[in-house]
């Protein structure tokens, strides 16, 4: 099952892959955070216009889709050598 480790000169690429994955993991958290922002205004009793909130929400949407597209260009969903060693979520237990 175990594959041979990749050659040394791939290290740099492998490192970039990992950071891209970190970014991919971070993206939904960012999105959720940004989309909850309008609630803060509402909680404070500041009433904002529907159009501005709408523009904000859709702006975030475009941003997320754009970032996701950028990430997807670099991300390889099929992990290479040693790629899955770091994340703790897949090593639970």
């Amino acid at each position, binding site marked *: *099952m175990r594959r041979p480790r990749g050659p040394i000169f791939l290290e740099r690429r492998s490192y970039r892959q990992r950071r891209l*994955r970190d970014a*991919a*993991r971070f*993206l*939904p*958290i960012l*999105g*959720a955070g940004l*989309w*909850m922002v*309008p*609630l803060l*205004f*509402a*909680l404070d009793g500041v*009433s*904002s*216009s*529907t*159009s*501005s*909130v*709408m*523009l904000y*929400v*859709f702006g975030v*949407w*475009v941003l*997320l*889709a*754009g970032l*996701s*597209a950028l*990430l*997807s260009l670099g*991300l390889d*969903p*099929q*992990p290479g050598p040693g790629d*899955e060693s770091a994340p703790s*979520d*897949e*090593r*639970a*237990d």
Partner: protein
Amino acid sequence: MGIFNVLIVVCLGYVALLFIVAFMAERAAARGQSSWLRSPFIYTLSLSIYCTAWTFYGAVGYAARSGLEYLTIYLGPTLVVVGWWWMLRKLVRIGRSQRITSVADLISSRYGKSNTLAVFATLVAVIGTTPYIALQLQSVTLSFSSFAGVEATVPPFGDRNAMAFWVAGGLAFFTILFGTRNLDANERHHGVVMAIALEAVVKLVALIAVGIFVIWGLAGGIEATLAKIDASPIGTFTPSAGRWAGLTFLSAAAFLTLPRMFQVMVVENEDERHLRTASWAFPTYLMLMSLFVVPIAVVGLELMPAGANPDLFVLTLPLSQGREGLAMLSFIGGFSSATSMVIVAAIALSTMVSNHIVMPIWLWLKEDGGTVVSGDVRGIVLLSRRVSIAGVLALGYLYYRISGGGAALAAIGLISFAGLAQVLPAMVGGMFWRGATRAGAMSGLAVGFFLWLFCLLLPSFGEGVVLSAETFQNGLGGLAWLRPQALFGITGMDPLVHAVMWSMSLNTLLFIFVSLLTFPSPLERLQGAQFVNVFQHSGATQGWSGGVAQSEDLMVMAQRILGGPEAQSFFQAEATRQGLAGFLPEPIPDFLQRLERKLSGSVGSATAHAMVAQTMGRATVSVDDLLRVADETAQMMEYQSQLETKSEELARTARQLRAANEKLTQLSVQKDAFLSQISHELRTPMTSIRAFSEILRDTDGLQQDALRKYAGIIHTEAIRLTRLLDDLLDLSVLENGQVNLNQRDGVLSTVIDHAVAATGAGAGRMRIRRTALTEAVPIHTDLDRLAQVFINLIANAQKYCDAERPELTITVQNRGASVVVDFIDNGSGVPREAQALIFEKFARVSEQKAGGAGLGLAICREIMARLSGSITYLPGQGGAAFRVTLRTIRTNAAK
């Protein structure tokens, strides 16, 4: 031709187009020209079945009522897809590597292939999806009647119900045709996916067209539209924070757990890399679908009459402006949304119902009838799928009829979401936490499901329909803390958020709590490891592998074939050989080879190889199948060994019986000979007596010494007769235990002296060898009876020893508690076959060696038994050898 008829024609034409597209796609896939079918964009478009008629019509209605809140329904899925690296990637990988066919299958597979759990998940899915299907039927009929309202003609179908019926029937037909064409192992339906992708395009185009018309045709540009929005009744953003966050979460959860989403996202997935494209393309699609919702709602509220149903603005707005072409496009878009959802949902549900409910029942019923023919099952599965599809649509139609189609579309959609989301804790927990157990999943799901029923679904029918007004006010059974919309006394919450909060939190808590308390079965642990560590277990490029198994799989299998202890010790030895502790060695080729060899001893080498190969995931048979095979093998082997044991027992019994029979036969011969023997023994002396008494009587003038001699013979023979009778009497007395023993103290040597003297052996031809020193053993017994035994033995030796120089050796061994006296002569001994009989009455070694009456040894045996000793024949001593064992310690054996 009225517009209504045009609608019918357009609908039929559109459906015909779908048929053609689906058919072409199937054909292309069958020919292998499916590269374009496997485009990641097709995959992305197929995900759009998330957007149903609820989105198409309902979102506008939702926006018209609650402003921007409708967006939450799309924000959740967007976050899930954007965060594909967390969940979707793993879900898809698990689905592929474990050959998952549905949400229910996923849950069941993760928790030890539990069918109970699968049935439960299936029921949740069916109950949660049925209203949703009803919703689609309703939207189609509503859109039809919107046109009918304009045209004011009587629909040729009669009424709405009939129309809903025809729609449901048509969809069932399409689904059965393309959804159950093949029974591929991977459950993929190219035709259906392609048709859905087409529908995704149609509905997006239709909605955007209406949106563009509204913004630039009616509102007068973007600026003006934004101004209109802020001026409208929904112009101020006043969200309920609970609903905003809650609904975002709920939609995200539903996106993962909706049966139809699972179908397109996981089951129909061709390639994991498609997710990469979908991660940005699908959010874009969702954004475009929701982009024009608010403008349409605002303009609709402005232009349409006050009582108009906002759920139909997308259709009625162009219609009211005389844009029938656009309205038609909008109608087709709505129709697309509804049909694609119903088709995929029906396929997904029918897979679950068929796999987890119909098939188990069928197999269970079939079990009595004998074995299942393999060719048979395929047809049954297809039939069961078809019946299930029809059943699911029939349920949707029934729900539509019963609910009357009155409730707001969005409400039904959210209720549905909340129900299906109950699967989420078990699903996510199973994917990320190895400690999750079946009991945990079961209890969490059960609690979540019942809370959803009680707090959301049943109240949704209204007060007094299922739950009485009394229950709403005072709680179930009058318990205030059991009010369906204010559980545990928490009031003032939005009913939906309230229900989601309670059901999901208690579901999750119970799931975790029970999982912590219970212990998973081996298969569950195995599957847990497979799910959680799916990226370590499955090769990246490998396709559908049959249950990827590791050492634990192998062990489970080996145990069933070899039996627990043997398999365990074998695995432990292998682990030790690899330098590992415990029972699970690494599945290196070396170990596999040895295991194969070991297994082949039980099941044959070909089978063993196939089993190991399959367990290692190199073939397409699931672990379950293997285990079944292993069970059968184990059973067969058990029967076999039982048979072996039985036949061994039988052989043993037969041997014993034969021995007993031999003895009985010999004894019977002896008994038969008894009369002859006794007759002979009595007649022989009587012959002499009679002959000589006649001589004495009839002969005159006999000499004095002849006279004396003949009288002497008569006397001797008479004594011989008496002795014989005495012997018989003696034996009879001994056997009946009526003998009186005269126990005295004495010395063994004296008794032997007496015996030797009585037989006259010392003076006779036979030489007697004794060792005086060892004979000085004090004994306490009936000395006369003991002497009788010794006399008998010495006399026998005299009679039967056929050596040229007969010799009798008498040895004495003092063994403390007992003394052993051996009488060994140097003759030919007793033949083996006679040894068992010599102590029987009237037994004689052979006819030729006539002599005594054959009672001597029988009497000896009886005497020794009375004296608490024994007499046995000692084989292998060179001659006849008898051993007399006597206790030296005082006993009160005599009675």
